[in-house]
């Protein structure tokens, strides 16, 4: 069905472009053939290439990088901003497919990245258990392993969405989400080894960074089925910024609870009410109450190209973006080029995995008129990504976290793309 739609759209597009060229619209016509000067000095066919290297690096021509971030409303960047940065954002506008290169995975830590020798690192599992056990990293690696490709998103991602729209990039607005292949041991394997007592319903996870970050994890069926203690990311050991040598991974849950540099799991019968689940990572509503233990990241999508601050020319553009849901698979992504008046189905790139970035694309021909590009996704529970208006109606403007409304990019007549609230 989707294939058909795409084929129809393509045919329409080809038909339309043919008509436009036939009409002689100068801006859209093919440029005249012009030979490029051969550069014999830099001809890679005339000089031997580089030999194999022990650890690969990207081409020196590739310059994409993370962007330092400093919180809601604060300017992003490195240089003078660097001392205030407490996170870094993934350059979504430059990436292909669904997996985020480990070097570009977003970061959020609360007192720097610790330097940990894996040979000295230990994981203690204790509390309401039959026997408290201490594991080395090597022992955990020997246990039955599991791998899974899944997104990880900070619940503060898109927090500027609660405020007036700034003229920024998709990296600024949505760069606190990334996808990796995560490898480790299932939490349930460890819980079995220690013999969890029946009264255990919550688990404290604690990191060995200078923040000693601690969060309470409810032992729901989803958590018991899916939680992992990870040591691998995209085929190699976790990056230090992602918790080397061990992190908790809870697919679909807000980033903060995926505790990095994990050193301790303590089983208990109630939440521990740490700062990170009371003072922070709770969402203040207009009536003065706040949501607590909002762990699932709800469905969200964004067009990554064309996107904020980019400049486009009239002609063909494949609208590209990412969609994801903490509740399962993305089942549908629609794209609008007229600010949400009309919607058409985008094509989803296979494989579409649960709780994972899903790449979508939609062929579009820009004619030079003002346009407003939007995407909205639906997940397997039937949940549909809300408009900003609907989200704000329920949550107000002071939630800080868990903003997941439809993103709008306005294409201005000169081809400049601007972040707006439509």
């Amino acid at each position: 069905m989707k294939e058909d739609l795409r084929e129809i759209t393509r045919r329409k597009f080809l038909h339309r472009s043919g008509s436009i060229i036939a009409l002689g619209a100068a801006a859209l016509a093919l440029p005249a053939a012009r030979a490029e000067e051969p550069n014999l000095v830099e001809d890679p066919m005339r000089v031997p290439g580089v030999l194999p290297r022990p650890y690969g690096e990207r081409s020196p021509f590739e310059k994409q990088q993370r962007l330092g971030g400093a919180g809601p409303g604060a300017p992003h960047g490195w240089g003078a901003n660097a001392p205030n940065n407490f996170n870094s954002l993934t350059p979504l506008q430059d990436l292909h497919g669904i997996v985020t290169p480990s070097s570009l995975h977003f970061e959020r830590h609360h007192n720097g990245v610790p330097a940990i020798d894996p040979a000295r690192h230990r994981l203690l599992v204790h509390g309401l258990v039959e026997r408290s056990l201490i594991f080395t990293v090597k022992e955990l690696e020997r246990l039955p392993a599991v791998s899974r490709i899944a997104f990880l998103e900070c619940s503060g991602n898109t927090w500027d969405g609660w405020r007036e729209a700034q003229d920024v990039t998709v990296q600024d607005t949505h760069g606190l989400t990334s996808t990796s292949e995560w490898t480790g041991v299932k939490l349930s394997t460890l819980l079995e080894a220690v013999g969890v007592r029946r009264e255990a319903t919550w688990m404290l996870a604690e990191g060995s960074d200078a923040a000693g970050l601690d969060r309470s994890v409810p032992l729901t069926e989803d958590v018991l089925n899916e939680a992992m203690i990870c040591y691998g990311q995209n085929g190699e050991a976790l990056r230090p910024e992602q918790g080397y040598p061990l992190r908790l991974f809870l697919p679909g849950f807000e980033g903060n609870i995926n505790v990095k540099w994990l050193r301790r799991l303590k089983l208990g019968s109630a939440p521990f009410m740490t700062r990170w689940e009371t003072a922070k990572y709770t969402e203040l509503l207009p009536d003065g109450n706040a949501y607590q233990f909002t762990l699932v990241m709800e469905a969200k999508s964004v067009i990554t190209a064309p996107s904020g601050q980019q400049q486009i020319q009239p002609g063909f553009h494949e609208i590209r973006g990412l969609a994801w849901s903490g509740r399962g698979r993305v089942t549908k992504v629609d794209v609008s080029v007229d600010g949400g008046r009309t919607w058409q189905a985008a094509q989803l790139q296979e494989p579409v995995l649960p709780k994972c970035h899903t790449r979508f694309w939609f062929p579009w021909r820009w004619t030079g008129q003002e346009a407003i590009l939007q995407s909205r996704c639906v997940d397997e529970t039937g949940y549909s990504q809300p408009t900003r208006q609907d989200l704000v109606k329920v949550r107000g403007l002071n939630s800080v976290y868990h903003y997941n409304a439809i993103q709008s990019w306005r294409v201005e007549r000169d081809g400049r793309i601007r972040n707006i609230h439509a």
Partner: protein
Amino acid sequence: MEGYATYMHKCVITGVAALVVAFGAVSFGRSAEDRNEYGLGRPAAEQEIRAWNMDVSPTGEGLPPGQGTVKQGAQVYATKCAACHGPTGVEGPKDRLVGGRDTLTSPKPVRTIGSYWPYATTLYDYIHRAMPFNAPQSLTPDETYSVIAWLLFQNQVIAEDVVIDAQTLPSIRMPNRNGFIPDPRPDVR
């Protein structure tokens, strides 16, 4: 309050049910005492657990011996905290700690210990493990209790003569104790 209590009760029930289901599914068919199938990991000695078991829960479990007063806390705060949080806990530049009562429904809510935090025990858990930012875990239990006393006094949660220790801290009722509701999402249609 009732809503929250019901919620916690539900969590307990759901959690227990989930555990039964999950362990039923993955059980090796042996008793709970005999499931360390892979023989990996070594038993943790009591001493090791004590050294790492640093969390403090709302019941006060985990609080060490020691005590602190508002007066002592003023000194600790001035020396170790004021540089980041301001002379009275209001000025910053880092998180504002004091004031903000009755602002949560305003367009610019001020979330502080006094206006937002639901549990006083969280102060011990967090300050001991993470503060001061440049020297975490450097405060003694007495210093930690003292600075908590000062912060609660500044926020008008306790009187100036209250001594904070493992018994008094969990008994303190924070002004925003009932300000939290369990995740009701999906809430936007």
